[in-house]
């Protein structure tokens, strides 16, 4: 874990209300594992005092970390106004990221909206055996991951209004895909699903994964204060008690979560 006053390299809008921030933080970049996150501090003179948690999307050899975020409130609005060269306090890398997936032949990455952000971190490792399915409300909020990150892999898109890709929800599209995929029963073995997105979407995906007995990992988001496991503020209910999203998570095996309580 490092606390760094990092320099902003760029901060650009890549879709409606969605920004890609890149910061110079080599200590974090060199130690971050896929699925881990950072806490960004807002201007100390603002009345918003808490840091904001963000998944690390990607890191590079130059020691930059990339964060894909959506303007949701005053904190993210403030961050979106920051410019190249500005300094921002970063703590990271934090939390438990994704497990090592190299024993799986097929990885389904299912991202709802800005939920694609942590999944992108898996692409450099497992892009060649992943199918990335992303769901958005419409074309305006569609994140063109292939173009932004110059990544080559299977990226399938659903929009609720059909303005780009498949018309329908991510879950609908995934089901169609899965039916086809599972016709070959051999495929079920060594397949895994990794997902991030709104709770209602994750619940549906969990139901599907549970019914066909394919393991599912999810990256969760909650209100967070410290990000370091100190305050126990960010918990979600698990089968054996409350679990801290910042410490035991943000990535959890889906079966450990009490979905009914969410």
């Amino acid at each position, binding site marked *: *874990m490092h606390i760094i006053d990092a320099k902003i390299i760029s901060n650009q809008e890549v879709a409606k209300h969605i920004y890609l921030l890149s910061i110079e933080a080599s200590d974090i970049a060199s130690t971050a594992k896929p699925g881990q996150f950072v806490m960004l*501090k807002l201007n100390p003179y603002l009345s918003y*005092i808490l840091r904001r948690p963000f998944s690390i999307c990607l890191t590079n050899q130059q020691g930059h970390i990339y964060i894909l975020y959506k303007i949701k409130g005053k904190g993210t609005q403030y961050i979106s106004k920051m410019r190249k060269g500005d300094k921002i306090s970063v703590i990271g890398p934090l939390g438990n990221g994704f497990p090592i997936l190299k024993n799986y032949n097929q990885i389904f990455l299912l991202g709802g909206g800005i939920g694609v952000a942590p999944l992108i971190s898996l692409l450099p490792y497992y892009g060649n055996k992943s199918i990335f399915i992303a769901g958005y409300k419409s074309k305006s909020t569609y994140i063109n991951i292939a173009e932004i990150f110059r990544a080559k892999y299977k990226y399938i898109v659903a929009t609720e209004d059909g303005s780009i890709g498949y018309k329908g929800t991510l879950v609908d599209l995934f089901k169609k895909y899965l039916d086809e995929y599972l016709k070959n029963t051999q495929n079920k073995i060594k397949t895994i699903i990794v997902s991030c997105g709104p709770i209602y979407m994750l619940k549906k995906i969990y139901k599907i994964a549970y019914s066909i007995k394919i393991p599912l990992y999810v990256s969760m988001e909650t209100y967070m204060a*410290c990000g*370091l496991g*100190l*305050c126990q*503020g960010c*918990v979600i209910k698990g089968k054996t008690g*409350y679990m801290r999203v910042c410490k035991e998570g943000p990535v959890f095996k889906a079966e450990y979560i009490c979905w009914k309580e969410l």
Partner: protein
Amino acid sequence: MLERTVNLEVNLGFLKLKNPIIAASGTFGYGDEIRNYIDINKLGGFVTKGLSIRPSIGNPPPRIYETPCGMLNSIGLENIGIESFLNDKLPIIKDLSTAIIVNIYGKTIEEYGEIAKRLKGIKDISAIEINISCPNVKQGGMIFGTNPKISANITELVLKNSEKPVIVKLTPNVTDIVEIAKEVEKAGANAISLINTLKGMAIDIHKRKPILGNIFGGLSGPAIKPVALYMTYQVLQSVSIPVIGGGGIISYTDALEFLIVGAKAVQIGTANLINPRACIEIIDGIKNYCIIHKIKDISDIVGSLKT
């Protein structure tokens, strides 16, 4: 040339601290995790998460919510219980060269006595802080701390069951905090710490529901500092035991305000959640202030308020 040495040591009578900065309960875990991030030995001391006789699961989420210049929390004293603390956590932290203060709470008055008994004779623990001020639990906590007689009874019971010095942490959610402070002093408390959080709530206007799973919570952070400072000032006028001030301290200047009104030490809470190095930066800030103002001993600042 500026004099570079400053004596930051404070003497609470029952306990000497290397400096007046203490990390507050609930913002530092049990010290075992944060010690990987910062050098805890630089602190005057830290207070553990509130511990009960049996493990406690705490309140349903959401448990935290940011509000202007502050935050609401309704953790509800989730903790591993005193036995797990003694068996699993204390061995990890006992060699630290900083004061370890154990915060305790009971669902009944008797439970305070039981926990105190468990801490008796454990040399690595410097003091007990009695939590009669948490607003987020249905039994115990603030319910006791708003009643002067019960506050005194619990203080006496803890003192009787353990040889440890006893600090009583007071709630601001009362008509007259001075009355409670006087009662616990009379009951034999070695020190008073204040303030715990102020009761508050927030509403999700779209769902028309409380944001916190527990409906209400405790407000902390810079928003409460003026209230905390005034209450510290008030209590200092009426008791003669040491007072540990705090509430919304985020910078060394905030800490100095409490010291100037007469607090012997201060507790840093919410600031730790924003910046795990907050305590250390505050210590450095106080030291620099002393150097610049040619103050050789922190005791020259404590209680130096001119009115």
